């Protein structure tokens, strides 16, 4: 069983090395509930596809996203973007490092439900939901977690999003990273919500020293170019 797994992992790596560049990479946005996965996915779509298109609703209620949503054919073209659109964030960044902003990458982005080991319907009551509604949402949320896990089989790269104000060293974060490493799938950790005063992205970097950690604010659009460049580099 173990050696079968190992072969599968080696084959996956080989297949990726040989064919990855041809197809469109499917990139999964993963992380715990409320890390900002939908906010980030919406921002990627707004920046590179359509300002008015949302893949989903970003709210403070956990498990708002209960189905994985795939947006196909997103072209992350940093060169075209910085030329054609004087987005203050992209431009100010590229002034600091003049060589940046050349990367181009075509991908499908998958916004996934948050990964959790428990879903308690009582939690939703605090957000003003009726009991029936809360139970229904909890049920859907469990299905969402399963769907997010199943999607891992079809994913070519992962952006693992964490909330920089929370303890990053959780079992679910460790499990996602462990699974990606076992499958040989590239992973980028994005330390989100750095606009908040109690954000400590360094804590995330310390917890996972073997991975690249990019501090961002998906909500405010801070440091996005760093993330896009890392995506272009790792997911190509």
């Amino acid at each position, binding site marked *: *069983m*173990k050696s079968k*797994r*190992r072969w599968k992992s080696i084959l996956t790596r080989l297949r990726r090395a040989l064919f990855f560049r041809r197809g469109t990479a499917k990139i999964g946005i993963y992380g715990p509930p409320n890390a900002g996965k939908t906010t980030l996915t919406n921002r990627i779509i707004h920046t590179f596809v359509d300002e008015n298109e949302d893949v989903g609703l970003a709210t403070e209620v956990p498990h708002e996203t209960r189905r994985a949503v795939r947006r196909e054919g997103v072209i992350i073209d940093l060169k075209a973007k910085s030329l054609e659109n004087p987005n203050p964030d992209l431009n100010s960044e590229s002034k600091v490092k003049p060589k940046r902003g050349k990367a181009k990458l075509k991908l499908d982005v998958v916004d996934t439900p948050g*990964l*959790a*080991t*428990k*879903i*308690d*319907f*009582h939690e939703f009551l605090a957000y003003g939901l009726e009991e029936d509604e809360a*139970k229904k949402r*909890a*049920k859907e949320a*469990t*299905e969402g*977690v*399963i769907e997010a*896990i199943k999607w*891992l089989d079809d994913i070519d790269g992962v952006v693992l999003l964490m909330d920089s104000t929370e303890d990053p*060293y*959780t*079992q*679910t974060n*460790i*499990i*996602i*990273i*462990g*699974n990606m*490493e*076992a499958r040989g799938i590239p992973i980028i950790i994005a330390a989100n919500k750095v606009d908040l005063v109690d954000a400590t992205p360094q804590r995330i970097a310390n917890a996972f020293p073997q991975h690249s950690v990019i501090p961002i604010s998906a909500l405010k659009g801070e440091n996005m170019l760093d993330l896009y460049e890392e995506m272009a580099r790792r997911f190509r």
Partner: protein
Amino acid sequence: MEIKMNLISEDKINSMTSTEKLRFVLDGVKSGNIVVLEGGLTSEEQMKLIELTMTEVDDDFPGIEMSGYPSKRGFLNIRKKARLTVIGPAKMMHTTKKDKDLISAVISAI
């Protein structure tokens, strides 16, 4: 109030298939036990355990709490060895502190 713990040896775990292991753990946890596995579950098994747990969540069983040491890289970085894993009912167990070599958890009877 009593809290029951099952401390499972690595030999016992290794004698089971992955499916048996997960069923064994979840059954133990659903009957209100804290299950400690010497040698632990791999990341893949832990992911499967989350999946299995989610199919069984209901009004009385909100799910599990799981904590473990991250696996260590073995020979040539290929083989990864799982270490200790602790799993309990989410209603009873709450991890308060965790780093790569230490886990603190509060366990309360329901």
